[in-house]
């Protein structure tokens, strides 16, 4: 990854925003993710993240639940607050 400030989506805390950089995930999961609005460049905001268990993010105006394992494979750049 050439982005120095890339973090995993799991590291984004509630109410913070970020921009998707890439995901390192199988084609089947990637297809599901893009059809739910996750593409590089799309903005995400964290709705629920308690540090364990699944989390909920908002992307393109819709809420999506992600397992922690899946979220860990999505890399984002934190937006300036």
């Amino acid at each position: 990854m050439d982005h120095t400030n890339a973090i995993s989506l799991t590291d984004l805390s509630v109410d913070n925003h970020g921009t998707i950089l890439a995901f390192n995930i199988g084609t089947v999961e990637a297809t599901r993710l893009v059809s739910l609005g996750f593409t590089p460049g799309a903005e995400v905001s964290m709705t629920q993240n308690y540090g364990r268990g699944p989390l909920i993010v908002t992307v393109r105006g819709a809420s999506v639940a992600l397992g922690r394992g899946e979220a860990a494979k999505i890399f984002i750049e934190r937006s300036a607050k």
Partner: protein
Amino acid sequence: MSDCHSMSVPTQPVTLRVRERMPLLVLAGQPNVGKSTLFNFLTGLNQHVGNWPGKTVERREGNFSFNGNEYGIVDLPGTYSLTANSPEEVITREFILRARPDLVIAVVNAANLERSLYLVAELISLSAPLAVILNMMDVAKGEGIHIEPEVLEAALGVPVIPMTATHASRMQNFYQAVQDILEGRRVSTPRLPEIRADHGAILEEILHHIQGYVPTPYPENWVALKLLEGDTEITRTMQSNLPAEKWEAVYTLLRQHDDALLAIASGRYEWIGRMVRAAVVHPRLGQISLTKQLDRWAVHPFWGLVILAGILGLVFWLTFTVGTPVQGWLDAQIVGGLTGVANQLLAAAPFWIRSLIVDGVIGGVGSVVTFLPIMIIFFGVFGLLEDMGYMARAAFVMDNFMHMMGLHGKSFLPLFLGFGCNVPSILGTRVIDSKPARFLTILIAPLVPCTARMAVVAFLAPVFFGSKALLVSWGLILLSMVALVLSGALLNKLIFKGQRSAFIMEMPLYHVPNSRTIGLLIWQRSLSFLKKAGTTILAMAMVIWALSMLPNGDLNQSYLVQFGKWVEPIGRWMGLDWRLTVALITSFPAKENAVATLGVLFGSSPDAALAQTLASTFSTASALSFLVVTMLFIPCMATVAVIRQETNSWGWTLLNIALLLVISIAAGAGVYHLALAIGL
């Protein structure tokens, strides 16, 4: 592994029940856009529910008329995209390409326009006549979103029909629009999305290679896109259609551009962005929506579980205050009444005919059918929670727990339904989108103790354990749960190699449930169960009856009892004599038969006298073992029938029966010897 390998492109001709020469409309859309509600409004009871050929995906079709014209309509399964990741996606695109409908109606959620236009971006490239229904305009308004349908229509280049699916009065608008489109008064000049600029050249190159080799009915452009997206079905099709050197060239290109999926998706979202910017007048306000407010509680790691427990408690309460009494009443009135009538009518008939009707048909099928009220409660609650958007929240809060079995949250509610009856439970597994997870859920679902098994425990536990009956009952439920989690975890390791499907799930907006949608769901599920009772279950009941009657009509000398005596050595491991073993075997047609069988074998009716005899005949250890085995024994025949239907395989069904047999025998033997060891 993915589902794709078990999937084949359905080449058999489409079997439409709607009459020929009737215009054919299809509804397509993502889940949670109100597509099925619209379909139910259009067709009412004038619909047929079946399965797509060779798939366990519901196929709904029907017809409706307007202005004297009749229309056939097919409700395609809800899908987020058209890439071959699930049977739903393959069915949708194959049907549109092969059945050539007169109009594809894409239903989008106005409250979530950006996301739900993604499927439209795919549909518009299939070159089938397309119209867009802008549904849930009321929900959008509530969220502070205002959309101008005419502007969206101009931007998309296809007709756009605004709608609020829950208001029948506004259907006029829809009918008129459909008629205008079909009669050519509203024309389309669709604007197609384009691949992100940096991948334009590679798309052209692929297109150049495949030109002339694409089989009908696929459009060449679309195939090129699907190849770049990594679609397994299309890749396989083209590999077998292209000459080797052409395939080699295409394959090399695809290998070099394995990120093309993102370029294509980005292109689609750019296209969507243009539409949304044009048509959405007031962007989302900063207000906190109802969904956000409710979700503060509903998906909270602690309160979410409390709310879920409350809802489940309510379902149990409903089952025991309404379902169980109605079931008992039906059993006494209908089954009891029919038995009386049949006995009178057939008084002169040969003994075996009377027994066939009374014990085989009425006793066997009748007692299964009396569980319908309990099933209806569970079908209804499941439908209600699904329709209002709560189901996704329940799945979310249970996700951690389900991980222990390599499953995720979506498997929880189907399993929970099993407490009412295992039949709705197995049917409910359709919400699970990955096939391995769905099969694993089906395999362990019969371990959830249903009301029929609890009825046996409720009768026998006080007989054997007196004041400790409640404690024993709770212990039995706990044991079932432990068996469920352990076998889930073990099966996941052994058969499914520890793989776990990704948990990626939309959290839909909450909305007011639609009584028509839920009513139709209950009606269709009940009807389907009754059909099963009249066919598969009837056949199985006959076989069991014949085994209990042959060779001379005396149960004590029947093949069934002979079989019971023959397998008694296995029963001995668990401390069961041949009578308890036979009682277990006869619980196959319906679990509560176990008590009735003991009654027959001891020559008395299931009442106080039987209770006394049983208590004095069997040791505490044997009694405990019998209850444990009853809880975990092979699924009843109604459950077996739906397992066969849902897995579409006798292999899986037999594996399931064998699994439960092994678990129950092991648990029974374990409990028996443990009880002996501690001196019970």
